[in-house]
């Protein structure tokens, strides 16, 4: 068991302003960045604001940027840094700051509400749902999402362009559209809701230029770009740019 003193820079402040504050703090074997932030709270800065919950990488609360990279503090082990390194921790930089490491993630909750929910199939009662494993695999991958919003934070579409926020749902909620569109029993189409074209028309799929940062930061290892966004783009193409598929759907042969 060996411990050492690490140097930290932690952003402190609120919407009126703030800056990086220097700390020296003890680090023990096997600890993660969140442990260090907690030690700062307990010993040096009792009012240091930080959001956290499960401390096991399951709830997605403790998102922050560590040395400039969006990460979960509870899943970033101190051993990945050199002992001489100064570790910088800042709040997520795509969202308005509340205080210290806490940001206002309301954007995400707004976007969540804009995606129409699962539409249960008509005439299939509770207990009568039959779905094959291979048909739910794809959506299940997306439902592993813990809503840490790191993908929303890193996505340059909104991170670097505040003005795009109204038009763009972000990777997490485009993935939600994909999840529902791939759900074997979602009956949105029967009610006249075409998730494929609304992905582009209402949720801003066209803004995505598939530079894959969402996939890179996902702590759950979900292949957001390859398995959700690109397939969704291809589905939008079916509806909007593919005369063959479009014609087929008009004739009504393609019911798969």
């Amino acid at each position, binding site marked *: 068991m060996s411990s050492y003193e690490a140097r930290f820079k932690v952003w402190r402040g609120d919407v009126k302003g703030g800056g990086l504050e220097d700390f020296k703090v003890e680090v023990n074997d096997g*600890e993660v960045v969140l442990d260090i932030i907690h030690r700062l709270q307990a010993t040096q800065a009792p009012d240091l604001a930080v959001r956290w*919950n499960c401390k*096991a990488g399951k709830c997605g609360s403790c998102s922050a940027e560590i040395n400039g990279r969006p990460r979960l503090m509870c899943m970033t*082990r101190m051993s990945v840094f050199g002992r001489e390194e100064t570790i910088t921790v800042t709040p997520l930089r795509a969202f308005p700051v509340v205080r210290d490491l806490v940001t206002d993630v309301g954007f995400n909750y707004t976007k969540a509400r804009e995606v129409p929910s699962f539409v249960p199939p008509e005439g299939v009662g509770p207990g009568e749902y039959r*779905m094959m494993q291979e048909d*739910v695999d794809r959506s299940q991958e997306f439902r592993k999402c813990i809503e840490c919003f790191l993908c929303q934070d890193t996505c340059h579409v909104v991170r670097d362009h505040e003005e795009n926020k109204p038009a763009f749902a972000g990777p997490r909620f485009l993935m939600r559209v994909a999840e529902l569109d791939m759900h074997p029993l979602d009956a949105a189409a029967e009610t006249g809701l075409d998730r494929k074209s609304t992905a582009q028309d209402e949720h801003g799929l066209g803004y995505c230029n598939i530079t894959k940062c969402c996939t890179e930061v996902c702590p759950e290892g979900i292949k957001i770009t390859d398995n959700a966004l690109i397939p969704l783009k291809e589905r939008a193409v079916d509806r909007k740019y593919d005369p063959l598929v479009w014609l087929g759907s008009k004739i009504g042969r393609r019911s798969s």
Partner: protein
Amino acid sequence: MSVVDRQEWDVVVVGAGGAGLRAAIEARERGARTAVICKSLFGKAHTVMAEGGIAAAMANVNEHDNWQVHFRDTMRGGKFLNQWRMAELHAQEAPDRVWELETWGALFDRTKDGRISQRNFGGHEYPRLAHVGDRTGLELIRTLQQKIVSLQQQDKKETGDYESRLKVFQECTVTRVLKDTASNSGSAAGRVSGVFAYDRETGRFFVLEAPSVVIATGGIGKSFKVTSNSWEYTGDGHALALLAGAPLLNMEFVQFHPTGMVWPPSVKGILVTESVRGDGGVLRNSEGKRFMFDYIPDVFKEKYAQSEEEGDRWYDDPDNNRRPPELLPRDEVARAINAEVKAGRGSPHGGVFLDVSTRMPAEVIKRRLPSMYHQFKELADVDITAEAMEVGPTCHYVMGGIAVESDTAAARGVPGLFAAGEVAGGMHGSNRLGGNSLSDLLVFGRRAGWHAAEYAAALAFERPEVDDTQVDAAAAEALRPFSAEGPAPGEPEEDTGRPPENPYTLHQELQQTMNDLVGIIRREGEMAQALEKLAELRVRARRAGVEGHRQFNPGWHLALDLRNMLLVSECVARAALERTESRGGHTREDHPTMEREWRRLNLLCALTDPTGGLAATDPVRGQITLTRETTDPIRPDLLALFEKEELVKYLAEEELYE
């Protein structure tokens, strides 16, 4: 006159985990305008940590399963201390609650014929747990969250406002349940009139006025040092109910999950799901021995395999073999691990070995236990497909809780107060079976929401009024940490000017005390010592002070949570001292056997000073008074589900012949 913001709602749900959200959905669907208050962000509740599954006798995998068998397993697991009516309702309604989730978009793992797959778990006779890999809790919370959003979308369509009928106040904490008083309501006084809360982000106070309040705040694990619980689990709901005058039931029963991580220290306590054992994982000591075969108690002798060969056969042929003892109820396994470590046969970091690497191919492990693989890889540098995990007991769940009416989830003694989920007591008796928690949340969350909505509707035209003096008192109480300086009330003069206590330090001392003195194995002397220490902490906690201001100040939040943790810890310690037997989650070294006489006895904790003041600093008297209560006899048709030979092990003579 207070100037806090006030809003009117029909039903206020405190807590947004599985039970809270299910209650909110039910209340809103039954027409009540419903507000949900939660300490974290919406969708982050502790329910996401549940891994194994939802127990429901759907009989998708084994056709012999039905609610009676589920009921029987639940009663056995709880050592017959369960409120039998709750266990009955739970077993009967769980399948409907699971199926309903599918209509809201949940995607469980499937059987070959497309139904919901079910897995084995400790204490369940048949494969019964609907699951999604090992992240079932996440699926549950997300489904309920998305159902709430879908109701809000409906409301938006009809009223133009997402939040007109169902609103989530996230990152807010309730510190008091308010009741109406004689000056306003005369003889009807004492009914719930609303809640007092603060917004964590801004620090502002507000009052939600409502005739019905559903408490669904989860558990108390943060009073213990080694715990699988998140920071939210500070026993808020237990304390709110106590302070409002509702009694807590059987608080001595705290479940220590047998398998938590033991290394590295910073993750000590994080849960290792029981599915590891359900899917074939085995426990070994440092000598490589599968020691669980030595720990099968008499009451379970006929139900469990006596040899490794038979246990191994069971995974493929459960009808003709008995299950391995690794799948005994959690209390048994936790005690066994504790005993092995004590006898010097533990692993290097003070646990035992849990091994799947020699039992399943790496690919299967990664598919069936993805988050366990991930968790050990990321946090401990251990590849569970190649080496054994080190595990040890961790505080996981409290079986005790608010005493409620079985059918309505109404808290006893306070009209308008309801409770569901972990915060409610009774359902699980002295020990909860894995998988019964998620189903409990759904079954009783729904019932709480339903009866809260009905109760509120009946009072629509005579809503209990909020008493201003209570609001002022609550505000003053919440602000005290900012002015905590000088001596505690009644302390001698020379102590003036002492610096305020650090809430983090107090919390650590409390956790250490509960862990060491009221932990998995209990002794009379240690618990008396714990009560002394709790009294000391209580005095010091009154001087817990904080720096900074009210905006998102974790130090302040913790200072306020301390009140709740201290109250609840005292309940646990006092009840544990009183119950002179060992049963389920309560193990007394000085009273090692289960006593049939104790089976009918419930211990109720109530506030000694019912005015709600917290002046009591005397460790002997404390804040909590215990009363014993004899339970109703189990209904004969339910008793008939068991063999006579089994019942004699649990029930006293006279109960058998009543």
